[in-house]
């Protein structure tokens, strides 16, 4: 049995067949989206079938990692214990440069490894230009008792 948690850990994604290539991209510093091999339509979140041409064939395309803030919130308590110490903290939705209808939820920070509350929410505005970075996040222990870690995207002003 795993020992009692010394401290609450942030939530980590649970990669699946569709999402694993996205998270794998993050671990090598690439922001990838799924692109239909048949018609070239890009889609996010990843899924098996292209909604434009119904093809099951897709490839993963590394994008520029540039985008703009589409919307943003400031999360206040009460929240899960792992996030409470950082609250209030901002969360943004970023519209990607290559296709602004592709949008990703994320954290806008001063540098990839900085805390999720490192930017003053008053300095965040819709339309602001941002660029992606990546940071390692330590989660709760898995079945082997070791903490799971994953590389997640972060966003920074540019």
């Amino acid at each position: 049995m795993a020992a009692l948690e010394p401290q609450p850990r942030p939530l980590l994604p649970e990669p699946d067949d569709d999402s694993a290539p996205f998270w794998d991209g993050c671990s090598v510093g690439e922001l990838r989206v799924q692109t239909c091999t048949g018609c070239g339509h890009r889609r996010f979140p990843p899924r098996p079938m292209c909604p434009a041409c119904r093809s099951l064939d897709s490839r993963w395309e590394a994008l520029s990692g540039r985008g703009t803030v589409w919307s943003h919130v400031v999360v206040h308590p009460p929240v899960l214990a792992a996030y409470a110490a950082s609250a209030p903290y901002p969360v943004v939705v970023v519209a990607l440069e290559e296709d602004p209808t592709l949008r990703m939820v994320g954290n806008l920070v001063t540098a990839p490894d900085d805390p999720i509350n490192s930017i003053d929410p008053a300095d965040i505005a819709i339309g602001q230009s941002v660029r992606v970075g990546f940071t390692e996040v330590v989660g709760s222990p898995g079945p082997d008792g070791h903490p799971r870690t994953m590389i997640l995207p972060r966003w920074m002003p540019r």
Partner: protein
Amino acid sequence: MGIRDATAIVGIGQTAFAKSLPESELALACTAIRDALDDAGIDPRDVDGLFSSTMEPNAEVEVARNLGMTDVTAFAQVGYGGGAGCGVVGQAALSVATGQADVAVAWRARKRGSRTSRPWAQVGAGIPGPAQYSRPFGLLRPVDEIAMLARRYQHEYGLTRDHLANVALAFRKHANANPNALMHAKPMTRDDYFAARWVSEPLCLFDNCLETDGALAVVIVRSDRAKDCRQLPVSIHAFAQGINDQHQVMTNFHGTDPLRGPAWTTARKLWSLADVGPGDVDVAQLYDAFSPLILLSLEGYGFCDRGEGGPFTDDGGIEVGGRLPVNTSGGGMSEAYVHGFNLITEGVRQIRGTSTSQVADAEVCLVTSGEGVPTSALILTRGAA
């Protein structure tokens, strides 16, 4: 074709609403159903259709054997939490209209501490599904997800906090007249609204629904049978459900127009099935887990143009006596939050003429379920005499 006015709601029942009730969810559900059948004057042994939400904690078999039902011949559940309510009633109506059941019950019981009531508060080792792209970044609660849409709506349409306050204050005023409302004895001022703590900016505490224990039920029969029941029948004039293009549940940030959600799809179908249009609606019960959903619903169901939902609420626009009285029992924000089922029973009371904030001569009531998720809506009318 269609089921226009083919069925009617002939009974409603509800338990007390409270932050915490001692009874089990099963006891609450059975109490509400028993009282709804009593309201209609129908013996529980005559019930043969059972309809609920996929988040309902009580199985049909448990409900049936507690209430001593005999042969149940139709049962189904509708998904998507707050989007389900009107869909549950509508699926029951479809079943009755087509003869799969003669007497159908639709119900919802909910306790805030329940395993099934707050799935977002449960922490697993990893976050699967679409939420894996949002929750790890601290977009944790439903309010955070709707606040994201609300900020974008502010940006596109100039929504102000005064518009959101209009919503909260209108529903509170209606709750103050309703002895069954959790907030019956708690008046609210505009200053109270602006003094409230933030929950997820741009939304504060009073932009959120309550957390409530309680249960509600409605009884549906064919319109020809409804005339024999105890109460004035309330006709299910039209019913529709909706999932829109490229919709994603709650975190609907994708596609070309994320602020145009399932309400628009549902509305298009609903009005196409009805003899009435938005201009004929006397009173509306609009799903209000969060105040911005009211503005989106006013637009989606055609009461005003895109971006005009905020100004629509000005000058008492959604209070009794205003342009369109909304949530006349106090709604989810000030009466009780039971996944919108209390909006359905209040719609019935308005048509019966028994609301505590009665709209004079109300003949047409729109009831909606949650915008922001796959949703549903009903048009309730007095029907044929």
